[in-house]
């Protein structure tokens, strides 16, 4: 049938209507993406996130491109800084001399305070945590709109960075890592609308949550107590929740015209070319999620308890091999044949109940997961805890100290899960 004979020959679809239908279909697709992304982010298990992998792959591809585009900007910045240094050398020199004079006194006080602090630590038997290693990365893109505040840096999981690691500039906390690919990482800044950071007021030790809103000065929320914060108070990370280590400098508290407490961030006062990522395991990274998800074991019956006790009892020392003269050695048994240890004595009052032996088997499997076959007597014993070597602090590394009034999980290198 020729086209001119077709019944669709006279069919003329209005252009605006077809575009409108296409727009509605595209809008439905976009809404589906938005909803699926929200569902995806709500999942606790980070490995199950499909969109996170897409984002990480995108960042990995984009980071080199942004790095190339950012290079001319960096050169211009460096050139402008050189010109500024040249013209403002005298005033900067005066300012620096004043700062040096102030810092000399601070250095003297620092020596005395460190000595006193060490003494207190010894007296109070305080645990000091190992230093946190840091890696430095270059910022290749800086998203700064009201709906998102994020940065892309040119180091990733190849440098040991994991999701949740805090990031700092020379002045203070910048944010934390929310996405990692082998060669790039995405930082969520403190000012992002989705950012929530537990902080404390240095002067009063009051706790609050620093909430980003897309503006340059995030606000303090859930501030308890009266008169706990004044203008100019220094704000630090509190370490609550295990997301950040305690005591990282964040900024200075200021009240806006509506009476809301906001923070002037230290990290805003400097350049944004480099950031240091603290390779710090937060609480969610240190806890064994699989172990937490295991169902609780049922209580042991008396018979099973006796079996476990018998298995945990060390075997008695083997008697010396005595081969009296005249006693024939059984044929086929070499003189050096090992002597089987005596079997554990049966329980004194064997219970007639036929309790299922699963708990014992599970206990044995947990304590010696690599063992195959029936558990040996020694396999039920507690495995030796391997103490991790405490690394010595290097110059320039951040060292954090837990104080006694800190109520949150503390790092304990003597425990296999690392928590005190």
């Amino acid at each position, binding site marked *: 049938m020729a086209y001119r004979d077709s019944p669709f020959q006279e069919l003329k679809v209005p*252009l*605006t209507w*077809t*575009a*409108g239908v*296409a*727009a509605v*279909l*595209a*809008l439905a*697709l*976009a*809404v589906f*993406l*938005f*909803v*699926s*992304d929200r569902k995806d*982010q709500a999942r606790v298990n980070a490995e199950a996130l499909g*969109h996170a992998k*897409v*984002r990480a792959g*995108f*960042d990995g591809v*984009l980071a080199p*491109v*942004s790095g190339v*585009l*950012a290079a001319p*900007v*960096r050169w211009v*910045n460096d050139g402008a800084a050189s010109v500024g240094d040249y013209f403002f050398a005298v005033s900067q020199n005066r300012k620096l001399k004043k700062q040096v004079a102030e810092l000399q006194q601070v250095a003297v006080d620092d020596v005395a305070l460190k000595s006193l602090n060490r003494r207190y630590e010894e007296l109070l038997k305080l645990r000091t945590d190992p230093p946190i290693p840091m890696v430095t990365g270059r910022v*290749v*893109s*800086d*998203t*700064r*709109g*009201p*709906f*998102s505040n*994020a*940065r892309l840096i040119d180091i990733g999981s190849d440098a040991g960075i994991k999701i949740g690691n805090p990031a700092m500039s020379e002045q203070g906390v910048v944010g934390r890592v*929310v996405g990692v690919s082998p060669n790039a990482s*995405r930082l*969520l800044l403190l000012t992002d*609308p*989705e950012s929530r950071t537990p902080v404390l007021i240095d002067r009063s030790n009051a706790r609050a949550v620093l*909430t*980003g*809103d*897309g*503006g*340059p000065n995030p606000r303090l929320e859930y501030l308890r107590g009266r008169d706990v914060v004044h203008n100019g108070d220094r704000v630090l990370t509190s370490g609550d929740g295990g997301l950040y280590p305690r005591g990282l400098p964040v900024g200075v508290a200021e009240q806006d015209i509506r009476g809301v407490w906001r923070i002037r961030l230290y990290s*805003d*006062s*400097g*350049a*944004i*070319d480099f950031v240091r990522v603290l390779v710090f395991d937060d609480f969610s990274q240190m806890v064994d999620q699989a172990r937490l998800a295991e169902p609780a074991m049922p209580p042991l019956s008396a018979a099973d308890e006796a079996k476990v006790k018998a298995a945990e009892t060390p075997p008695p020392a083997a008697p010396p091999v005595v081969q009296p003269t005249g006693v024939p050695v059984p044929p086929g048994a070499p003189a050096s044949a090992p002597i089987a240890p005596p079997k554990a004595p049966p329980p004194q009052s064997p219970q007639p109940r036929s309790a299922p032996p699963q708990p014992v088997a599970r206990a044995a499997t947990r304590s010696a997961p690599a063992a195959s076959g029936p558990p040996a007597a020694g396999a039920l014993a507690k495995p030796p805890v391997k103490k991790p070597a405490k690394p010595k602090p290097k110059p320039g590394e951040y060292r954090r100290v837990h104080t006694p009034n800190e109520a949150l999980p503390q790092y304990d290198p003597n425990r296999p899960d690392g928590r005190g």
Partner: protein
Amino acid sequence: MARTPSRPLEPWRWLGVPALIVIALTVAIDAPIRLFTLALPEPIFPMVLAFGWAIIRPSILGPFILVLVGLFLDLYCATPLGLWPISLLIAYGVALIARTLMVGQETEVMGFYYAASVLAAFASAYTLVAIAGHGQPNLIAILWQFAATLALFPFVLMLRNRFRDADIRFR
């Protein structure tokens, strides 16, 4: 080679190339630069496409390319996926509805409708971020970005003048 109006205009010319230019500008504007410790404003370049494509010619491909550009923006800015596709399509819809009202009007009228479509897009973005982030974005920061995006209106005019009469079918 001069292009004659009788020559058909392929979609990649008026849809594909502007989209790529907008993506390149978005990446370039997000370079880590500050002037006297002040952050530069960050306009939403794809808003030019959302408004410009609707007034040049209604197209089936346009909304879907806007979804792709919006997805790029979401991945690049680390916003929730779907935030900018929805906002751009709302701006496109406003421009599509107001298209007939703008015919034969002065440039100022078109500027007014551009501001209205950008406002609708930002209102939807504000709502979606409030839903997703359980907090309200800073209105002053939004005002800054809104003003920076409004300043892109000359690019809308350039896009319209470049492609409005480029194809006889567009008339």
